[in-house]
């Protein structure tokens, strides 16, 4: 059911445009929203926000390109982007243009400098339009209250620099600088119910209660009014795209394209109010809703949910009726995923070492089980998704493949073939662990648990039933830097990086007489920091209740319309929030090093080890080498090291479960972190595991870089030292696999079987990066971080970084030949 065959000409054309894109910024949203804000200043936010979006939907530029099969733009231009001032203000972009050396080119637009990896531009008119309203939003952004005032412990938390919280000299806290997002919106409901019926539900309630609003009716009325305006906005937007298609059809000469445009016009006018009828309409509606939400809030990490599940019934019906062929359907899927790739906007910059280029974070989930029956849910769209990702070589959006005991062999093969083509995708998620975890940790019903999807990096959420992210927080990722917290725990609460003292004192490592005392110090410090962190999160929840309701999201999320309650205040069927920890292996290995060196083997005193760490190992090189080479490390299947990891993650989980807000009873824990391990490493002092100041900490749930030397089965086995069902904010285990492990049919089978075994044993997630030439070049540049990169050729194995340069280069050439 997959062959990674060539794409159609127009898809290929579109792909090339996207690959060579220059993101064009415009001032459209900013200008429209500023007008609304000026006119309606003082209107309660729950009404004012729908007013913004209604004005945008009425006035925004609309266009359809000749090569487009799935339509809709976030910005004015096809590859453009338009920034909402509500969160970011309007001075941000002019500042970049002026301070980052943008210059006017032949096309008359400002462009970012050539030495930045990503290309961006803005027209002079748009730049000037932004300059005109440059300071209008100062003090008026959604995050402004959090910048103006913070709870009194904030100074301690920000000052300690052990989290993503900071305090700028100018007073910006960054506490609420982006909207929450990080969820799977209710596509299923939007597709099957339609905006017309949702609007009617709101209007009917208001008609029934006209002039009689007692008790909680007032809250409901405000929500339903917002929902009504929101639905009107969506209907307007979709109809305008329908009008645009109709207009283009009139002047179109090619009869085939003319018919296509007429179909689009007819469909868009219909689905603006009614449930979708066809596969094309289903795909188009999912994109329209995503665009609509981007105008409401620019929600980051707004996922596409179970795309194969909510679109397949329509494709099946189309196929039964004979109105579509599989080839036509595949082209629609190609266009769908390319459209997602056009949503990514860039400001230029040099952040690719930590961010990667072009991530929409619109995670898409496929496979899994049918919610009602628990049977395997694989369908043709499951394969078509992988086919598109593989044949278009798309690294975005992230695709998660849900694995269950009945996942068909062919789907496994297709997925591993896709991994080989695009590296790292799909992520493999284990239904058995996640479904059980959702029921146990978050109280999901079996049916809703079976309908989970993945969002953002790794987070597990209900599909359109769940409001799973903290309201309005800068730091939905790995907010607390646990390696810094550990440094503080063995340094009496002082961060060695900046000398700041926490209000809790835990003693110095050289005063500690047993490993239990070390663990107790860490638990005390973790509790102190996590609780302050969640308290700040709860402050943003408090601010959001009034300042930033999300009616556009709420109308799609299960139970909000029924309860008459916005998702930000608890209208959703399931409520949770959480954070994640990255690099807990660095903390665990540090504890193991202290245990082994100071207490069990007595190779050095706690004083010596403390001095070595505080001196960033300078003058203690031999001690450092001894720790690197003789202390057991997490990730090698050695219980001596693994049990410390289990202690750290269990303690982290236990403390998270002590936290909650008014809206959410559960603060979820997770173990992933995008590329946070690199950034956090920069600001983390040396650690007792031998890591030097500034070096990366371990990545997500993976072993510390270069510390696992017994192969992938040992890594997977080590990770099973704790219960994965606790970590419902998701988990990431990144395994590097040499191409030799997937270059024969039998070897590919082995990768599948290893995953299956890991899942049977209770593993939640794994992703495979088939080693590319890029990886090998990176390993040449930074051997220390790639110590575990094994080269295998039947019966021969060696560590890549330990080979002489000529042989390394030879291997790079080989790798090029094997995987292209």
């Amino acid at each position, binding site marked *: 059911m997959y062959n990674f065959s060539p794409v159609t000409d127009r898809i290929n054309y579109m792909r090339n445009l996207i690959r060579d894109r220059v993101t064009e910024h415009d001032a459209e949203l900013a200008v429209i929203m500023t007008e609304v804000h000026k006119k309606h200043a003082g209107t309660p936010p729950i009404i004012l926000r729908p007013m913004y979006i209604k004005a945008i939907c009425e006035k925004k530029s609309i266009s359809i390109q000749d090569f487009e099969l799935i339509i809709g733009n976030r910005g004015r231009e096809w590859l453009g982007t338009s920034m909402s001032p509500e969160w970011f203000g309007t001075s941000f972009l002019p500042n970049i243009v002026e301070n980052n050396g943008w210059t006017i080119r032949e096309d008359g637009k400002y462009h970012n400098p050539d030495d930045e990896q990503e290309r961006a531009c803005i027209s002079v008119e748009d730049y000037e339009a932004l300059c005109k309203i440059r300071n209008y939003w100062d003090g008026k952004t959604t995050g402004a209250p959090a910048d103006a005032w913070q709870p009194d412990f904030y100074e301690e938390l920000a000052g300690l620099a052990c989290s993503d919280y900071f305090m700028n000299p100018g007073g910006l806290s960054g506490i609420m600088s982006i909207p929450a997002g990080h969820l799977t919106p209710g596509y299923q409901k939007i597709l099957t119910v339609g905006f017309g019926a949702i609007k009617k539900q709101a209007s009917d309630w208001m008609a029934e209660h006209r002039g009689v609003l007692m008790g909680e009716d007032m809250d409901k009325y405000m929500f339903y009014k917002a929902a009504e305006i929101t639905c009107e906005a969506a209907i307007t937007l979709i109809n305008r795209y329908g009008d645009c298609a109709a207009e283009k059809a009139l002047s179109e000469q090619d009869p085939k394209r003319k018919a296509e445009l007429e179909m689009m016009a007819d469909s868009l006018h219909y689905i603006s109010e009614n449930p979708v009828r066809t596969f094309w309409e289903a795909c188009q509606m999912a994109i329209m809703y995503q665009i609509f939400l981007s105008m409401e809030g620019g929600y980051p990490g707004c996922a596409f949910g179970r795309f194969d599940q909510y679109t397949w019934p329509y494709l099946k019906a189309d196929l039964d009726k004979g109105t579509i062929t599989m080839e036509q359907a595949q082209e629609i899927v190609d266009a769908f995923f390319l459209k997602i790739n056009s949503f990514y906007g860039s400001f230029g910059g040099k952040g690719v070492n930590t961010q990667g280029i072009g991530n929409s974070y619109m995670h898409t989930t496929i496979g899994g089980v049918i919610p009602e029956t628990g049977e395997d849910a694989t369908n043709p769209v499951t394969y078509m998704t992988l086919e598109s990702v593989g044949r278009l070589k798309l690294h975005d959006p992230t695709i998660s493949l849900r694995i269950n005991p009945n996942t068909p062999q062919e789907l496994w093969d297709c997925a591993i073939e896709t991994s080989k083509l695009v590296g790292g995708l799909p992520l493999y998620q284990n239904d058995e662990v996640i479904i059980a975890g959702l029921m146990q940790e978050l109280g999901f019903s079996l049916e809703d648990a079976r309908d989970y999807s993945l969002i953002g990096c790794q987070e597990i959420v209900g599909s359109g039933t769940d409001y799973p992210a903290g309201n309005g927080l800068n730091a939905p990722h790995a907010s607390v830097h646990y390696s810094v917290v550990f440094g503080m725990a063995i340094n009496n609460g002082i961060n060695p990086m900046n000398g700041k003292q926490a209000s809790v004192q835990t003693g110095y490592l050289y005063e500690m007489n047993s490993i239990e005392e070390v663990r107790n110090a860490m638990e005390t410090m973790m509790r102190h920091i996590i609780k302050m962190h969640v308290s700040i999160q709860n402050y943003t929840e408090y601010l959001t209740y009034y300042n930033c309701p999300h009616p556009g999201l709420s109308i799609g999320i299960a139970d909000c319309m029924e309860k008459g309650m916005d998702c930000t205040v608890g209208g959703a069927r399931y409520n949770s929030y959480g954070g994640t920890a990255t690099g807990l292996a660095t903390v665990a290995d540090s504890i193991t090093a202290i245990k082994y060196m100071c207490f069990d083997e007595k190779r050095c005193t706690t004083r010596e080890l403390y001095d070595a760490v505080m001196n960033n190992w300078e003058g203690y*090189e031999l001690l450092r080498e001894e720790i690197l080479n003789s202390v057991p490390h997490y990730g090698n299947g050695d219980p001596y090291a693994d049990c410390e990891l289990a202690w750290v993650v269990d303690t982290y989980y236990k403390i998270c479960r002590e936290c909650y807000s008014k809206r959410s009873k559960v603060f979820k824990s997770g173990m992933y972190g995008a590329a946070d391990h690199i950034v956090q490493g920069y600001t983390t002092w040396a650690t007792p595991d031998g890591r030097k100041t500034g070096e990366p900490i371990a990545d997500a749930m993976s072993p510390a870089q270069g510390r696992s030397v017994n192969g992938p089965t040992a890594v997977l086995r080590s990770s099973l030292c704790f219960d994965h069902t606790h970590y419902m904010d998701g988990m990431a285990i990144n395994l590097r696999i040499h191409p030799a492990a997937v270059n*024969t049919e*039998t*070897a590919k089978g082995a990768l599948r079987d*290893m995953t299956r075994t*890991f899942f049977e044993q209770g593993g939640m997630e794994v992703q495979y990066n088939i080693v590319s030439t890029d990886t090998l070049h990176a390993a040449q540049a930074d051997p220390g971080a790639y110590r575990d990169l094994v080269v295998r050729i039947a019966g021969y194995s060696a560590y890549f970084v330990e080979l*002489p340069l000529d042989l390394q280069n030879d*291997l790079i050439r080989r790798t090029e030949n094997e995987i292209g």
Partner: protein
Amino acid sequence: MQKNNITALIYDIQGFSVQDGPGVRTTVFLKGCPLRCPWCHSPESQRFDRELNWMSIRCIGLDTCGMCLDVCPNGCIKAGEVTQNAAGDDIRYPEVDKTNCDECGKCAAACKATALYMCGDEVTIDDVMYRIKRDKPFFEDSGGGVTVSGGECLAQPEFTLELIKSCKELDINVAIDTTGFVKYDVIKSVMPYTDMFLYDLKCMDSDLHKQVIGVPNELILENAKRIAEAGGKLWIRIPVMPMYNDSEEHFKLYGEFLSEIKDAVIMVQLLPYHKMGLSKYARLLTNKQVFTAEPPSDALMDARKAQLEAMGLPVRIH
């Protein structure tokens, strides 16, 4: 209890082996081999003793460390001149001359950075089984198991036999990776506990075999036939060496021989020569001239595969 006292010298245990037999396997590499194939890519597997190795990339330099300089009882280690490491920084490495080295390991024990290290660990059956038991879940889904390899694992027959008996007690699939250059009695003793032999056929011409490897091939071919007659399964491995056994004529000989024992052959694995072993000779500090050649082309490998497949044999490359 007796068997726990048996030890062997191993140089590696490798999890997730996907090229040493079917499925996901754990391969135990025993140290020591009676043959001296010039292309051997794991020269550390040849001697039956622990050996000193040297890997400069791990060394932190004499000026920071220097612990190796005074420990050698035979005066093999001297301070070297200033040079540059891979990162381009100045460094002084020790100069190790193994002429008088008796492999005592004192320098390796002193080297915290493990730039000097001893290859070869003496292990018990329990040591190895501890690791195997932990990998066992990964065997079951994949039809994998344990491969005992080398060196020549049948050159340490008591240990190998006890190890695979222990595996069989746990119902683990066992493959023996052998050169075939052993007495048939040894093969016979392991046969009841062996699901397949990964069996090397390096060359069909006995004179050439003797000339290059040092021993003729009659015993090897004879053993293969006897395994087949006794109902054993053979997973044949042919290292494809340029100018030596890669010709069409030579593969005709392979084909003819394998056709005789066809019922026993479950796979013919063609392993193209590669140069990666060169690094390991350098680590052993030997001056021995090693075989080098350009690896066979993909086209040639495909042609040899097709040639054997045409004779009805199951073939894979790698």
